[in-house]
């Protein structure tokens, strides 16, 4: 009897113990596995979409401080408003000069993981397909490193996925790499990308020419940092050790690589010339999805919740359905196209105009397509900018702008549009108010990227869907022209600049010219495209251009007794001054990262 009991117990135990010998290492069914992602077309596409979404494209949303790449509605926090392209809500250059601690090593890890695992799991794909995807990954990795290098200079180069806790802390606390090595690494990644990718791609994804375009941009940055950063710099440990700064001897090599990369695009892209009217053509270039000029774009849509607010925040509420504007083109930017505008007669008196729209007559079509001048219309409403009314006006413009303005007692300004003088509105519906800055401060509004076909009721916050053009052929041509001048190849630069000028409707370049001509062309062509901030930095002229500088407005006034208009070149009403300290040629390494990894010291000079 007892035996029977023992045998049953042993049997039960034996049965129960059976399953414990089986390995319980079964993949969970509710978590997507690497083999599911990297072995299927949809999986790879989804993975790449994550990377593209994180790509630091400085689009409508981008701010040089605070929320950085996050998606908020206030697009008037534009980097151009830190440095005199626009006047805007920033109190000074300091608001954005230190950046926002961008540190995308998480995203770089995502890319590295892709590069390591796609060849392991994607054995079912053709070699061409694998290469094309790897090429995109190299392009994206270079894009992240470019965004880092232009901010911080030398940062750690991470080529492989790091593992914790398998790797020791000492191994994981990486050192900074020299700045020159980082730029070379970016160039090499883009070479790999170019060699692996095909010539065409799906919309909003990179192809081999996008890699070449980015390379021309990045190498041009590196070249200018080498050349100009070795003359204008802040001394410090990081510079002595090569983390902030590139030897001047490397400049020519970088410029050559920039030129070579830009040349690769020749014949594959062209400047947009669909319309014969040059002004309208230039406006549509930023709105036509089929533009032959677009190399890499980012799309937005209402259904995915990505629509932006450019229309609602770059012109005033008079023309839109919601939101407000706070950033306005400076007169200094306009004078890059025109020189001094003809608003003063030879005898020094202000020129009299029958209406404000006469000012824009005969100006460069590209300028008029970039900036809304007084008298132009949008959605059936006129830009009727008027600063105020003079009962009468005698004497010169210079006297009126001096310290004892003779006509000041007869001048009327107002904060509200309903304020009247002798039955006439003192200011226009589009400004210029003495109260606040949601009407223009300078007498102008941004026109580039404004969707004039959109009904006013559709111009609310998060309702605009025009694409951001991150790279277009005109920029590549400007990269090429600048590199050419740096390499003393003036003939090539002239051809390229004239191609751009012809499309812009500007007079062609004849006679001698310098690097400043090419730089000025870049500032004009790429105005408001969030390049100006970086250009001023890499040319190392920001501390000279922004040296307690105040910017100007062009104020239209109505002279009541003459029934004419005059324009006065005044300081913009807020009279903000912009100052750039040399230490801001490099942003500080984020404090949190320094805390985690002491090997990131020395921080950039004077930070």
């Amino acid at each position, binding site marked *: 009897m007892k035996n029977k009991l023992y045998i049953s117990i042993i049997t039960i135990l034996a049965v129960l113990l059976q399953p414990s010998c089986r390995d319980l290492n079964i993949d969970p069914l509710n978590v997507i596995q690497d083999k599911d992602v990297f072995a299927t077309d949809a999986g790879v596409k989804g993975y790449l979409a994550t990377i593209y979404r994180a790509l630091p494209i400085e689009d409508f949303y981008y701010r040089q401080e605070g929320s950085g790449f996050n998606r908020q509605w206030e697009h008037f926090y534009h980097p151009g408003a830190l440095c005199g392209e626009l006047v805007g809500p920033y109190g000074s250059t300091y608001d954005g000069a230190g950046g926002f601690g961008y540190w995308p090593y998480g995203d770089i890890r995502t890319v590295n993981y892709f590069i390591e695992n796609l060849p392991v799991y994607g054995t079912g794909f053709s070699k061409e397909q694998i290469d094309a995807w790897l090429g995109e990954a190299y392009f994206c990795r270079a894009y992240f490193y470019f965004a880092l290098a232009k901010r911080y200079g030398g940062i750690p180069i991470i080529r492989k996925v790091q593992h914790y806790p398998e790797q020791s802390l000492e191994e994981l606390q990486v050192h900074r790499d020299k700045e020159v090595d980082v730029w070379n690494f970016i160039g090499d990644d883009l070479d790999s990308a170019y060699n692996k990718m095909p010539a065409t791609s799906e919309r909003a994804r990179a192809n081999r020419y996008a890699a070449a375009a980015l390379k021309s941009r990045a190498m041009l940055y590196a070249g200018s940092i080498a050349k100009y950063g070795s003359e*204008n710099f*802040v*001394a410090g440990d990081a510079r002595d050790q090569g983390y902030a700064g590139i030897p001047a001897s490397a400049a020519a090599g970088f410029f050559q690589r920039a030129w070579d990369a830009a040349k690769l695009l020749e014949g594959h892209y062209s400047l947009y010339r669909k319309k014969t009217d040059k002004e309208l053509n230039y406006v549509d270039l930023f709105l036509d999805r089929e533009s032959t000029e677009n190399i890499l774009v980012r799309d937005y849509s209402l259904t995915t919740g990505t629509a932006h607010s450019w229309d609602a925040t770059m012109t005033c509420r008079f023309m839109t359905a919601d939101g407000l504007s706070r950033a306005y083109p400076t007169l200094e930017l306009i004078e890059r196209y025109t020189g001094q505008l003809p608003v003063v007669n030879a005898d020094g008196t202000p020129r009299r105009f029958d209406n404000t729209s006469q000012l824009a007559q005969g100006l460069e079509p590209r300028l008029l397509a970039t900036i809304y001048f007084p008298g132009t219309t949008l959605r059936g409403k006129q830009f009727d900018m008027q600063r105020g009314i003079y009962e009468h006006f005698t004497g010169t413009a210079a006297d009126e702008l001096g310290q004892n303005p003779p006509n000041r007692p007869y001048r009327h300004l107002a904060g509200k549009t309903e304020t009247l003088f002798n039955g006439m509105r003192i200011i226009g519906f589009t400004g210029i108010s003495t109260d606040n800055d949601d009407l223009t401060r300078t007498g102008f509004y941004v026109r580039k990227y404004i969707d004039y076909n959109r009904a006013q009721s559709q111009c609310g916050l998060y309702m605009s869907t025009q694409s951001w053009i991150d790279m277009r052929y005109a920029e590549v041509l400007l990269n090429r022209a600048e590199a050419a001048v740096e390499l003393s190849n003036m003939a090539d630069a002239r051809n390229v600049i004239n191609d751009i000028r012809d499309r812009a409707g500007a007079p062609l370049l004849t006679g001698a010219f310098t690097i400043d001509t090419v730089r000025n062309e870049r500032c004009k062509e790429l105005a408001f495209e969030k390049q100006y901030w970086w250009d001023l930095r890499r040319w190392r002229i920001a501390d000279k251009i922004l040296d307690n500088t*105040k910017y100007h407005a062009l104020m239209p006034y109505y002279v009541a007794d003459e029934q004419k208009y005059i324009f006065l070149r005044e300081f913009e009403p807020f009279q903000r001054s912009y100052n750039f300290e*040399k230490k801001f040629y490099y942003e500080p390494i984020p*404090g949190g990262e320094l805390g985690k990894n*002491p090997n990131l010291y*020395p921080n950039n000079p*004077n930070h």
Partner: protein
Amino acid sequence: MQNIIKGLFILLTAVTMASCTKEDNFDGPDAAFKGRLLDNDSKENFLTETGGVQIKLEELSWSATPTPQYIPSKIDGTFEDTKLFSGHYRVTPVNGAFWPVQGVEMDINGTTTQDFTLTPYLRITQFTHELEGTTLIMRFKLSAPVETGLPRILDVKPFVNTSEYVGSGATISQYTDPNKIDINSSWSADIAAKTYEIRVPNLKAARTFYARVGVRVDDSFKQFNYSQIIEVKVP
């Protein structure tokens, strides 16, 4: 019953309060650090403005790579901070118009005093001024204590204010930038020999102004070397 509840509340309050009374056993910021910035030649206070020099403090007691803190200079060329933690610091004057100096490692506790001798990039010498109607005329020469390696000289500017706190950060802008002189060249015998004249026209009548001139070079910081401050009474 009511009393019991009241009693419980009182007890609870007392217990809650008592739990808050843990002593902070670290010392407060009870140390002070002050001193003068001296011109290496005259041994007088270095001519600067409010914040024209920063005293960089790196507290080495805890870390070899501390986040620095800064004491801005006062307008008279002294500095003082009375809310510092006692400890071992490296102290370096930076961010001013003088040849770079080595930092000093020292303990700061109680009230610690340390002076620093600085060599300015440039000095403003033979400084005179006169008033011609409402125009202030200031004349001066420039001298360079060390000529080798002197960065490019940028400009000289007048600074005018209604109080004796006058410098690049405290000036009436319409009197300053329109009247500056751009130099934009390296140090030369011509510059050394030249007598500069800066005119500030249209001063408001019946006011007292304070004025000085400043010159700067294209170094890392672009701060000014100043003249003495003068008082100008416009009749």
